[in-house]
């Protein structure tokens, strides 16, 4: 049985905006689930409804088999990390972290030991005596994390907890959260707009847009088999290349604007308009390809480079070796590795193959 279940969960604001549209989601014991989506997709509202900070307009939240929809946050046994910290400004860092334990009437000595332990792991030991306002945004966020992690609740809820950290700090905190998760096996729901973070942390990624769930699957599946055009574009950096065109020759070839001849594909069942999708690592330069364009950008990424090629068909990025420079303005041909080609329905945005 699932540990945390959202049943047709719905939130409509007083002005009529449907922030969350009848979401169904089941989270297993010990699972790390990431709600991923752009600003305003309803991910934070969903998280706040799980916490009890917002009241759903319809649907239910079940925690460990109990219907907690109408219960207060305090009655739900959760840890929550706020996007903007929500630290107690008049209390020291140590007192902030100890607060949930103090509320649970944990003995002072035990409390101090727990605070010291979590502070050590998150790296805020030197800050314990300070007040929140004396800290940088990143450090305040670490304190917020420490406060949520000092107790072992039934579920952890995190609202963009790494948003204010520098990229190097973010990497370290990701690693820390992952270890924490492996050790404690407390189910976690984590909200972010950063798909890289989602990919790194999640057992399962739930991609949301406009209040609905588009796909809920392990990161590898969301990455290589996106359910919709939106997911294909949103996941991956850069996102999946998408080229509008049509399948011809009984589905055995792809044609798009400006092509001298169609591009052969592994045989597909149907013909007609499609959007062809391919991740940049499945695109390579091929002088003989009929799909041609000019190099518009050649961006270095460290371990690799991305050449953005512009043509009548739009833009396609190809992932290349760190030393394979491309000259801006050069005309090149593009070929797709058949293993990486995905097809979408241009009308519905759904996956075809």
């Amino acid at each position: 049985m699932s540990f945390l279940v959202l049943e047709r969960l719905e939130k409509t604001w007083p002005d009529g905006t449907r922030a969350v549209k009848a979401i169904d989601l089941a989270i297993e014991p010990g699972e790390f689930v990431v709600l991923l989506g752009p600003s305003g997709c309803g991910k934070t509202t969903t998280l706040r409804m799980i916490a009890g900070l917002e009241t759903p307009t319809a649907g239910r939240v079940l925690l460990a088999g109990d219907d907690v929809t109408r219960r207060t946050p305090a009655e739900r046994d959760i840890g929550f990390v706020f996007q903007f910290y929500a630290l107690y400004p008049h209390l020291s860092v140590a007192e902030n972290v100890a607060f949930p334990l103090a509320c649970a009437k944990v003995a002072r000595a035990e409390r101090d030991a727990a605070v010291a332990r979590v502070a050590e792991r998150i790296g805020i030991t030197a800050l314990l005596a300070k007040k929140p306002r004396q800290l940088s945004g990143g450090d305040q966020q670490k304190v917020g994390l420490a406060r949520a992690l000092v107790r072992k609740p039934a579920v952890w809820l995190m609202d963009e907890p790494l948003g204010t950290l520098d990229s190097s700090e973010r990497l370290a905190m990701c690693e820390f959260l992952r270890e924490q998760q492996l050790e404690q096996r407390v189910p976690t729901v984590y909200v972010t707009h950063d798909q890289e973070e989602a990919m790194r942390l999640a057992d399962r990624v739930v991609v949301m847009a406009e209040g609905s769930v588009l796909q809920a699957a392990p990161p590898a599946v969301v990455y290589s088999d996106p359910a919709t055009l939106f997911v294909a574009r949103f996941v991956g950096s850069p996102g999946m290349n998408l080229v509008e065109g049509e399948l011809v020759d009984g589905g055995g070839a792809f044609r798009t604007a400006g092509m001298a001849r169609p591009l052969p594909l592994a045989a597909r069942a149907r013909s007609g308009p499609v959007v062809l999708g391919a991740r940049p690592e499945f695109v390579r330069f091929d002088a003989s390809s009929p799909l041609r364009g000019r190099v518009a950008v050649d961006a270095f990424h460290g371990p690799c480079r991305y050449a953005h090629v512009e043509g009548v068909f739009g833009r396609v990025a190809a992932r290349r070796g760190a030393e394979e420079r491309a000259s801006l303005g050069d005309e090149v041909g593009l070929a797709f590795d058949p293993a990486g080609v995905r097809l979408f329905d241009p009308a519905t945005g759904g996956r075809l193959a």
Partner: protein
Amino acid sequence: MSAPENREAFVRPPALELRGVTKRFGAGASAGRGARALDGVDLVLGEREFLVVLGPTGAGKTTLLRTIAGLETPDAGSVALHGRDARALAPADRDVALVFQNFSLYPSATVRENLAFPLAAPARRLSRAEIDERVAWAAKLLHVERLLDRPAKKLSGGEMQRVAIGRAIVRRPKLFLMDEPLTNLDAKLREELRVELRELARELETPVVWVTHDQAEALTMADRVALLVDGRIVQTGTPEDVYARPNSPLAARELGTPPMNLFDVERKDERWITADGVELARADAGAPERATIGVRPEHVLLDGGPSDAVVHVVEDWGPSRVLFAHVGAHALHVLAPRDCALRAGDRFRPTFDVRRVVVWPRA
């Protein structure tokens, strides 16, 4: 690409030249703002060059920009704009445009009014028609044409930042100063704007100093990167150069995600050994006795090495996987291919690609 531009910079005066710029904040009221000192900063920016200053929070990035803009007066050193000593120039006379992290638009004014505002100053003596033309030009470049009559407060974050940048470009300044302009945006939008703004800068042919803590911006956008740590420039060079050949462990730590693996080692029998006896890689005969060695995660191979490593976390990074492992007591990051089958708890024998290992002598 940047080499000819640099040569040109010596023929004509550079767009910007900082020499020994030092700025300290006293223990007074302004010190609490998190700004730290600049410590002898030298920087040269060629015409049309895109320079990214990369550094962690509190490194002095904002102070650097404010000093160039004339909002701060350096305690020592010189600032020259296009060969002219800028110390005597007020901010308004420097012909630079500053874009901030937090958009700073007039919320109730429309996009059109926001864009026209910098042009409306009487000193510019622009006719109504000229102003309209420039606003239309900027709106087109930044893809905000359909938003022109919307009030700024009704825009999304990405749209606001486009308009803020538009407000900087309408003036056609001689230099753009960008203070983490993408930091407050969604990751996806950031990624799109990185590409778009880089191309825009190329079109405008105006030099840019772009300050950020985001490595992706430094790597993908810069003609040249300057690493700023604690008020000092640690290294400058093309992104490829700084990435492949960091000049110090400090520089190595600043660039790269996951970061470069660094080990303090000693050379014994042409092998690099850590202080606690873990053998890491083959060492050249002429290499120093004691050194810090660095190897990028993508240059660690998964087999054939001298020592055992244990995986403790595997992360999925899309086209690749990142292994967080330990070799002996030392953390080791490995960027592995997508099809890598190693799981948490598995053992492997990491090999460093010796041609890519960077060695810094250690006292």
